[in-house]
C-alpha cells in the first residue's frame, strides 16, 4: 500500500509562490519541487487552480507539471482538454503529452491531432510528435471519430493512410512526402519517423524536402535516433 510522503505545508507554499510569482528566477526549481510533492502524493486536485488560472504564466506551470505526472495524472484529463485551445502556445504544447497518456476516446485524441495545423510551429512539431508516438489503437480511435463527424476532413485521409500498409513502405512514404497538400506531407514525415527504426531512408529523404515543418520534424527525429 502506498503511504503519503508529501509535505503539505511545503507543497502549499510552493503553489502560493508559483501563483504569485510564476516568472521568478526560482520558478523553474519551484515547479520541479512542486512536481515532486505531487509525485509523493500531494492531491492532484491542488493542481487545478494553476491549470485554470487566468494568468497564462501560472497556467503554463500547471500544464507543465501535468505533462510530467505520467499515466497516473489521468484524473486531470477534463481539466487539461480545454487547454488544447489555450492562447499561450507553451500551454498547448505541454498538454499534448497529457492527451497522449490519458485520452481514451477519438474526440480527445483528434483534438490533439488537429494541432498539426496550429499557428505556432513549435505546437505543430509537438502534434506531429504525438502522431509519431501514438499507438495504432489511438490512431484508429481518432480516425473512427473523425470519419463520423468530419468525413471530408484531410485528417481522415491522413490517418487512414497512416494506418495503411503504404505508410510502412519506403517508396510510398517518399512519394507521400511530395504530396501537394501540406497536411498530408506532415502525415508522411510522421510515417517516416514511425518506420525509422526499421528503415531510416525515408526520414533522411524527408530532411531534404522543401517544407520547413517536414524538414524540421525529420531532422529532429534523426537527432533522437542517434546514440
Amino acid at each position: 500500500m502506498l503511504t503519503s510522503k508529501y509535505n503539505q505545508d511545503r507543497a502549499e507554499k510552493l503553489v502560493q509562490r508559483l501563483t504569485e510569482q510564476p516568472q521568478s528566477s526560482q520558478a523553474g526549481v519551484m515547479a520541479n519541487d512542486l512536481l515532486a510533492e505531487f509525485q509523493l502524493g500531494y492531491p492532484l486536485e491542488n493542481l487545478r487552480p494553476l491549470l485554470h488560472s487566468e494568468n497564462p504564466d501560472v497556467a503554463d506551470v500547471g500544464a507543465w507539471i501535468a505533462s510530467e505526472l505520467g499515466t497516473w495524472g489521468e484524473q486531470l484529463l477534463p481539466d487539461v482538454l480545454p487547454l488544447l485551445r489555450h492562447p499561450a502556445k507553451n500551454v498547448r504544447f505541454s498538454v499534448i503529452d497529457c492527451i497522449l497518456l490519458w485520452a481514451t476516446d477519438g474526440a480527445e485524441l483528434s483534438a490533439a491531432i488537429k494541432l498539426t495545423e496550429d499557428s505556432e510551429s513549435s505546437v505543430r512539431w509537438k502534434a506531429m510528435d504525438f502522431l509519431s508516438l501514438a499507438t495504432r489503437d489511438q490512431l484508429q480511435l481518432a480516425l473512427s471519430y473523425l470519419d463520423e463527424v468530419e468525413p471530408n476532413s484531410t485528417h481522415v485521409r491522413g490517418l487512414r493512410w497512416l494506418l495503411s500498409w503504404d505508410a510502412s513502405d519506403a517508396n510510398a512514404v517518399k512519394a507521400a512526402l511530395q504530396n501537394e497538400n501540406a497536411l498530408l506531407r506532415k502525415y508522411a514525415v510522421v510515417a517516416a519517423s514511425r518506420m525509422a527504426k526499421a528503415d531510416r531512408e525515408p526520414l533522411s529523404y524527408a530532411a531534404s524536402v522543401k517544407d520547413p515543418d517536414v524538414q524540421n520534424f525529420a531532422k529532429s527525429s534523426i537527432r533522437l535516433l542517434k546514440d
Partner: protein
Amino acid sequence: MVVEKGKENEQIKILYMVPSRDQSGKFHSPKGESLPDHVPDEWTRDDLEHARDELRESIKRRNEVAAQKGEEAKHRDRIRREEQLLRQVEKKLSGS
C-alpha cells in the same frame, strides 16, 4: 526485486520499480515516488543499466523538446536533475 531473509530464514521478495520512460519518452518515477536524488541501494546492476539507458534517452528527448519549444527554466531544471541522477548511476556502474 529485492530478496531478503525473514525471521525464519524464509525468503521475502520485496517488489520495487525502477523508473522508466513512458509513451511520451520522458523518464518517470512510479506512483508515490519522486525522481531519486541518489541511487537507491537496492538497485541491482541490471536496474542501474536500465536506468542509465532510460535516462540517456529521456535527456536526449528533453533537449530536443527544449530546442523546439524554447528554453524554459522548469524544463531545464528537470534536465539538470535527470543528468545528476545519470552521473550517479554511471559512477556506480563504473564501480567508483
